[in-house]
């Protein structure tokens, strides 16, 4: 049962990465690409958390924590730059 749930989660995360990269590749405007990068960040954090559970090493969750804080900062900086319209 638990194995099945993990496999389904891995497939969903892979589909998320695939469609996010597709949006990044085909995106027409800057905002599309920034939104795709933000979504890919969240998907990557969930991938790290899933791998921390699978590998049974919970030190990896610290990486996911740092990742979340810093990518939020990066997306916020890009959004502020786009809003100001320089």
């Amino acid at each position, binding site marked *: 049962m638990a194995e099945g749930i993990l496999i389904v989660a891995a497939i969903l995360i*892979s589909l998320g990465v*695939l469609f996010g990269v597709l949006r*990044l590749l085909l995106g027409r405007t800057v905002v599309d*690409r920034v939104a795709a990068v933000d979504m890919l960040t969240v998907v990557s954090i969930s991938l790290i958390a899933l791998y921390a559970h699978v590998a049974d090493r919970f030190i990896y969750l610290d*990486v996911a924590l*740092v990742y979340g804080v810093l990518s939020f900062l*990066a997306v916020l900086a890009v959004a502020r730059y786009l809003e100001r319209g320089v």
Partner: protein
Amino acid sequence: MLELMVCLLCASILVSGFLAVRLDSLVPAMVSGSLAGLFAAVCYVVLGAPDVAMTEASIGSGLSTLILLYAIRRTAGAEE
């Protein structure tokens, strides 16, 4: 399963690096470059180096994005 995920991540790094080189506008190219760093950090975690991944996430995503945005803003008149 794990090898498939590493292959998917490496393909994503390849696509974002290609976009970072080929896009003609500066901000999407910078965002694509920072995405390559983020996927590289995930790859480091899956391959078993969490300390390298933490450094890559903090420098490659946070610091380099801010510095490149600052540089683009300071040189906004030079954009083709």
